[in-house]
């Protein structure tokens, strides 16, 4: 079996001031999968979304599993204009949320499926952990990612890093 280094950072963005979105564009098709890691303080009661190729048509859907410290729940969203990291809307907080997205076979010719996580613990004052599988019904290669919000902004200091994973 051949082995080689394969987990590479593509780009990192850190917000110097509050912003409503973060964009990664001109993503090369040279990797097998993409991985996005985000740490962000929201400005209020908001949901974080992920959009591909700047495509806002109703091609997105998701299935979510969530826990709030007291119970577990599952929900679905169909024919939406983006994927939600946290389809269950949290209460406002100044504690950072951590999000990841694993985008599999992003340059392939089938529909694109993504695993998303959203974690935010507040020491008993409202906690959420979300695991989500999202579908983007497009056979086009993904070359752009946008992190978007339902409203408000992501605070200064928000960081987003995009990695590429390359299989043998």
């Amino acid at each position, binding site marked *: *079996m*051949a*082995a*080689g*280094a*394969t*987990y590479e950072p593509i780009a990192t963005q850190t917000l110097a001031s509050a912003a409503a979105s973060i964009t990664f564009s001109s993503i090369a098709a040279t990797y*097998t*999968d993409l991985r996005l890691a985000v740490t962000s303080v929201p400005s209020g009661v908001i949901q974080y979304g992920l959009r591909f190729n700047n495509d806002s048509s109703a091609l997105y*859907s*998701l*299935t*979510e*599993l*969530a*826990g709030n410290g007291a119970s*577990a*729940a*599952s*929900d*679905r969203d*169909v*024919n939406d204009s983006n994927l939600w990291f946290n389809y269950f809307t949290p209460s406002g907080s100044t504690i950072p949320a951590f999000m990841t997205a*694993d985008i*599999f*076979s992003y340059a*392939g*010719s*089938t*529909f694109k*499926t*993504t*695993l998303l996580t959203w974690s935010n613990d507040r020491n008993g004052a409202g906690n959420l952990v979300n*695991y*989500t*599988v*999202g*579908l983007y*019904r497009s*056979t086009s290669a993904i070359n752009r990612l946008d992190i978007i919000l339902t409203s408000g902004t992501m605070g200064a200091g928000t960081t987003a890093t995009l990695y590429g*994973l*390359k*299989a*043998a």
Partner: protein
Amino acid sequence: MTPILGIMASSISGSKAITGAFESIATVTGTGTAASLDFSSIPSTYKHLQIRYCIRGYDTTSRTYDDLRIRFNNDTTNANYYGHYLIGNGVTAYADSLAGVSVGGAMIIDAYLPGAGAAANIMAVGIIDILDYASTTKNKTTRFISGNDRNSAEGSIRLGSVGYFSTTAITSIQLLPDPTGFTTTSTFALYGIKGA
């Protein structure tokens, strides 16, 4: 001098080269009818293994849901496998468990793979972490996240663990479809994660 990750920079010595800690080992691709996709001769030089997959079941009966199962070292001993799951199907969150005896000497990773009867181009994805796989003194624990969404039809997201009750180092992994195979658009990629 400012400590760096708990050690002083001046305390670092030796000539060991710093290389990537996450390496690609091999990739296998579905053939349609192959009853198993295998990683064999896995070296013991890593601390952990990770499998990342983007797959779809192949069957001749247009099933909506197929299975992905895992087996280690070609070991078909029923008592050596157990699985636990936390599952969401878009309506309900629930937990489940399975013993190897009910799965034929292997363990289910995902029982909701899109089969030939699912809408075209829908794929299931997942990440399986196999911890301390080369240990010869400990049983092996695997954790995973797996799922697929189908927009208007029921999909699933699941977190799980598979216990493999053997102290033999894992040198091969069999990825088993049920009932038939994986499509030619399916891939499993095996990675090795190094320890310090």
